[in-house]
């Protein structure tokens, strides 16, 4: 854990960890990369409906965090940055 954060933030171990996390979450939620992009576009549309947003400045990053403990239902969190 120590190695994946802080001073080693960009080591290949940290990259592997991030990739594994995203891949596993996508598998568990059966959400493919294309659907992910579509969701990003739709979220952008919703935001643009209420806020004055300039598409060039505003970037949406979706991090899907999915935790499964055995026997307990998935908890899904979507962070928009």
């Amino acid at each position: 854990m120590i190695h994946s954060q802080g001073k080693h933030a960009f080591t290949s171990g940290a990259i592997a960890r991030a990739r594994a996390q995203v891949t596993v979450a996508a598998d568990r939620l059966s959400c493919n990369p294309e659907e992910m992009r579509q969701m990003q576009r739709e979220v952008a549309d919703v935001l643009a409906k209420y806020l004055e947003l300039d598409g060039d400045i505003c970037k949406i990053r979706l991090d899907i965090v999915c935790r499964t403990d055995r026997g307990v239902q998935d908890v899904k969190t979507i962070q928009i940055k």
Partner: protein
Amino acid sequence: MSEVIVITSGKGGVGKTTSTANIGAGLARLNKKVVLVDTDIGLRNLDVVMGLENRIIYNLVDVVEGNCRVKQALIRDKHYPNLYLLPSAQTRDKSAVSPEQMRKLADSLAPMFDYIILDCPAGIEQGFRNAIAAANRALVVTTPEVSAIRDADRIIGLLEVAGIRKIDLLVNRIRMDMVRRGEMMSVEDVLDILAVSLIGAVPDDEGIVIASNHGEPVVGNDTIAGQAFLNIARRLLGETVPLADLESGGTLLQRMAALFRRK
């Protein structure tokens, strides 16, 4: 009551067969009566890893089809008199056995052994279905690689659906020097992503290659991997064995022994 443990991974080449041979040898060393069943029909490996390839007369398919009695097909290990192998067939394919037949086979072995360990083939097709059908406990082997972790997660999901309650993770081929440099995921990283309990971590040790060249287990010799596998066997028996020593690259004594061996 014997315990039927399936050793599986999804991805190939992560060390299922090596783990099966060494955990089996570990349990036998701890005075348990153990049978290892190679369920990879068509790609027979476990016999070679154990150095028993020249002693095979009958195999799993022969037993299932009733060509021989189960006792005739069992091969006694060279080192441990209470360790046996039921080899797989080399000339048939996965469809030669059904999940129901595997269950019956495990039932027929149960009165004779404390532990029945099933070496599962890679993949999630029939070979996997056959192997897990008889199991009441699973060890999922993974390495600290993205692809292996992804497959392990999928396997854990399938095992849960199949109703296997006890699922433990074995992180294989960890290199502590790389973890320290931040160039490899740590055991904690892997556990964080997969959210299952850990049964043990095994370092990437050249002793494993050397031992399997000879067709012998590493359990029982003074390699770090050998110690790790013996500890896993202890944990399977319910003992509490701390992980810490092995994760820091072995106890001082083991590190010194390793140092002298290299010279």
